[in-house]
């Protein structure tokens, strides 16, 4: 079954065409990567998948549901978003950040606390529970954002450049966590600029440039078809 289906998606910002007739299907349980230079349309596409950006043309379905007034909240309930920007609540501590976020999903305080502590153990932040998030290092903030995106036990997890700006050890820790999620059968959507990351984690990759999907295939097949490793494929295909 398809977790996400996009058909001929187009997005205009004023006259600029950010997405140019994009069609793709993401299967349930797979880890799907969007690769491409800055401005290729990845963020626009990610925004469409979690209902924040409305397509100018075309259709998008999440778990076979179209977005409309009634389904929007229901669909978003099943999605976990791990954004590229740090949008934690800077005035709250680590635990409060998770509990306030859980409240948006109607998760009561007791359950939220339980889940939060579980997730903080998962990302190894359980010693920092009552520390204000401003005092965390960049890497720890990324981990907290990662944990926050899982508070609603989502079926579909969107990871927008989850390891950008992290040191090698923290990056590896996040990769491990992503592997765990993969094995638990979650559907993952990933954008990244690290070819190594995409190669390691993604079952299939959509190569994007200038608002278009150029090709969708497994990392292995891309290497075979176009020669060289994924980085070569990327550099040969995209102009940026």
């Amino acid at each position, binding site marked *: 079954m398809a977790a996400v289906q996009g058909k001929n998606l187009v997005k205009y910002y004023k006259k600029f065409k950010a997405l140019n007739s994009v069609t793709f299907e993401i299967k349930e349980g797979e880890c799907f990567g969007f690769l491409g230079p800055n401005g290729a349309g990845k963020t626009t596409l990610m*925004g469409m998948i979690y209902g924040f950006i409305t397509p100018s043309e075309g259709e998008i379905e999440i778990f076979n549901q179209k977005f409309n007034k009634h389904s929007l909240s229901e669909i*978003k309930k099943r999605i976990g978003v791990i954004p590229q920007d740090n949008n934690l*609540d800077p005035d709250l501590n680590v635990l409060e950040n998770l509990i306030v976020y859980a409240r948006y*999903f*109607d998760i009561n305080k007791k359950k939220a606390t339980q889940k939060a502590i579980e997730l903080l153990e998962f990302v190894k932040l359980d010693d920092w529970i009552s520390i204000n998030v401003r005092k965390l290092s960049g890497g720890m903030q990324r981990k907290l954002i990662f944990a926050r995106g899982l508070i609603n036990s989502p079926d579909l997890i969107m990871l927008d450049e989850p390891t950008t700006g992290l040191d090698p050890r923290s990056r590896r820790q996040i990769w491990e966590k992503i592997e765990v999620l993969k094995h638990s059968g979650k559907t993952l959507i990933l954008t990244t600029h690290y070819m190594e990351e995409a190669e390691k984690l993604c079952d299939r990759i959509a190569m994007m440039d200038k608002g278009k999907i150029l090709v969708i295939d497994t990392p292995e097949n891309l290497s075979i078809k176009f020669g060289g490793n994924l980085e070569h494929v990327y550099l040969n295909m995209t102009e940026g």
Partner: protein
Amino acid sequence: MNLKRAIRVWQRNATVYKKLYRSSLTLNFFEPMFYLLALGYGLGGFIREINGMSYIDFIAPGIVMSSGMFAACYECTYGTYVRMFYQKTFDAILATPINFNELVLGELLWGATKSLIYGTIIVFVISFFGVVQSFYIAFILPIIAICGLIFASLSLIATAIVPGIDSFNYFYTLILTPLFLFSGIFFPLDGMPEIVVKISNINPLLHLVNISRAFCYEQVSHILIYDLAIILLYGIIFVPLPFILLKKRYVL
């Protein structure tokens, strides 16, 4: 639109406020206190009486409304702007089941709540000054809430159209300051030239101040219905606008 989800946004702001109220309380609490002391007693020493009451008695009920007004305005200009663009709280919230209109409603209700908090504090303060003479003052609370909704809406409209955070200076200097000064808080407008009276009549704060003063001194008469009708009209006109304008600014 789902009210429960709007309340979730309200709760987020309340949670943050509970942690920070000590620092913001000073801003919103001492300012009206200074007006009461400096003008009420200072300037009041030179003014015999206005409409049969001492100067501090004359201005105090108005200060309740103006502090309600400013509380909602600070919250829904600088506060909302920071949440929207700097902290990216809006982005975080919209990735959850909360939808845009619910987010705006939450902000609006929170702005009105801030009015209610600071307006009520000033009610207690002026009771301490011996100004309040009637239990009618209890009726003032819903009026402060309406005051909050009107000015929270107006502020969110400003937030939706300012090019940057510095531009709020224009909003405060060119809009709120004249509304504050020509609201009948500090001097009765009756004696002013007719044109000033007419223009001041479109000031929502003026009607709020009229109601506040009437409740404070038990001078309730049918004229209040006119003031009440005007502020309700303002509510009906202003409240829907931020939903439209903020969406235009924010949603892609």
